[in-house]
């Protein structure tokens, strides 16, 4: 049975996201999709799904949600305050929700983009092959209180809740980059200065990209007036005044400002999730190292699934069931 999500209240930056619209650069449409793609892969792994489901991306702040069918949900990405009918819920976990219960998701404790993914996936109508809002080009819009989203059915709502240990990618840090077609337009001194700088993630940022602030000289290229050329997410673009912006999911497809390099795909969640004020710095790897580090996205769910664990032990999971005292069928949970 398909269901509905009722948006009872919504923060200003919540949108439906999936993996976007790849393969359309020739029409000027960038891929878009989740700002932290890894979070959607983690959601699929937590829910035992082999395919990526469309979920709700929440920038900084969530909202209140209820569901029309029994379903599991996954909470991934930036950890946020979450509760179900007032009882706290763990993040980086899946949970069971009954119709009528109210899921409250508050502000982010760290990072920027949190994700709420129902087990049947959000099933709003697709545009150009994707459920995702692409705000920069006018596809879709932020979700607002009162909206109702269709979801697919959860075929196994009774499956136990899971939890996932994830590396902290929600507070900036050291980010690996690779050289790109315009790295040579910067002098080796400028590149060295860039790599030696600790930046602060500026409050200026959205799904298109984030600005990085620093004290000291700007990072000017040796040449201006070059033809606009193709852009890929993760590109570190210097505007004319030498201020770096790291381009994210909804970046433009081409641009004329030179790019000093590209953040490795594996580290793009780190920059997307660095909250305003977080320190970030860059290390350059060689092309050969970048190619060796790269893992195709399609292999990620299987890798993540190895780290998924049951959230609580249920009698079903306990091998030596008879060694437990079962009083009136209730396991208190602290027997061992």
């Amino acid at each position, binding site marked *: 049975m398909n269901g509905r999500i009722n948006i009872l209240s919504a923060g200003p930056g919540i949108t439906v996201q999936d993996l976007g619209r790849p393969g359309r650069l020739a029409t000027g449409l960038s891929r878009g999709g989740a700002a932290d793609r890894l979070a959607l892969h983690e959601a699929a792994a937590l829910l035992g799904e082999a395919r990526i489901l469309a979920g709700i991306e929440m920038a900084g702040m969530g909202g209140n949600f209820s569901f029309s069918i029994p379903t599991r949900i996954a909470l991934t990405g930036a950890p946020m305050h979450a509760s179900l009918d007032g009882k706290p819920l763990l993040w980086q976990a899946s949970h069971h929700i009954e119709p009528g219960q109210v899921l409250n998701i508050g502000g982010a404790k760290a990072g920027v983009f949190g994700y709420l993914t129902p087990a049947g996936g959000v099933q709003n109508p697709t545009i150009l092959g994707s459920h995702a809002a692409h705000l920069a080009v006018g596809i879709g819009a932020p979700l607002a209180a009162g909206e109702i989203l269709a979801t697919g059915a959860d075929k196994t709502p009774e499956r136990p809740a899971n939890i996932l240990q994830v590396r902290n990618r929600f507070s900036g840090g050291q980010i690996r980059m690779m*050289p790109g077609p315009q790295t040579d337009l910067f002098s080796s001194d400028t590149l060295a200065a860039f790599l030696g700088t600790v930046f602060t993630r500026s409050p200026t940022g959205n799904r298109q990209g984030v600005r990085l602030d620093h004290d000291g000289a700007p990072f000017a290229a040796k040449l201006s*007036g070059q*033809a606009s050329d193709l852009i890929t997410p993760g590109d570190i673009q210097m505007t*004319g005044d030498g201020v770096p912006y790291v381009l994210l999911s909804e970046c433009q497809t081409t641009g004329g*400002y030179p790019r000093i390099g590209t953040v490795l795909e594996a580290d793009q969640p780190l920059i997307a999730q660095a909250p305003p004020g977080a320190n970030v710095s860059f290390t350059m790897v060689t092309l050969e190292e970048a*190619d060796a580090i790269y893992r195709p996205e399609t292999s990620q769910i299987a890798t993540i699934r190895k780290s998924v664990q049951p959230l609580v032990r249920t009698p079903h999971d306990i091998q030596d069931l008879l060694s437990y005292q079962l009083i009136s069928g209730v396991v208190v949970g602290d027997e061992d």
Partner: protein
Amino acid sequence: MPPKATLTAPAPQLLAFGPDAVIVRFSLTPDPGANAAAQVFSQLVEQSRHQGLIEVVPSLASVMVRFDLAQVKRGQVINELSQLLQGTDWTQVDAPPPTRRWTIPAVFGGETGPQIDEAAACAGLSREQALTTLTQTPLQVLAIGFAPGQPFLGLLPDVWNFPRQSTLTPQVPAGALVVAVRQVVLFANPSATGWRWVGQTAFRPFQPEKVDPFPLRNGDEVRFEQISDTEYRALLAGENAGADVAHCEVLS
């Protein structure tokens, strides 16, 4: 030596581009010959149907080739592209003639083109001379990019070869005509830009509700027809109501 993405020199250069793509760059700066080479080479790569190539995108002076790393490694793609480049003098390639000619009404100057005088001054022209050039130069769609359906049009005469501004204009509206480096861009969406804003059109290069959401194609010819602010506002009302505001003529 710092790490480099450059794989060959001189032009055309093969350059690594992110985890799974290569860029073939015919020129660093806008150049009619390099644009023609990019258009012709992208068709050649498309037609080659090499295994593992999943996206071929021509840009102003380069072509991006994305590949599937599960099927093919970067080194193999470089070899295949190098072979396709061989045997042609890419500085002597002619662009295919345009097959369609668009006439797009536009208003210049005033609130909907506040930098016309500044742009004219950059080109060393009077406002009248600049307007004559903008409306009488047959322009070509050199590339579609930045935003969905958005055309880069050119090339204007060489005096228009001035750079982008050093700071971004926070926002120009959808339909804005902006100039820099011998080109005109017609913005598909409200956008920040480093280009100078000289005019405005009611035409929308991205029409998501239509069967073909992307009306302009690489190689199309475009001319701007000067209209008054009043006419522009009437066309904008029509455009919002779904009317076609630009005229497209198919050339034999």
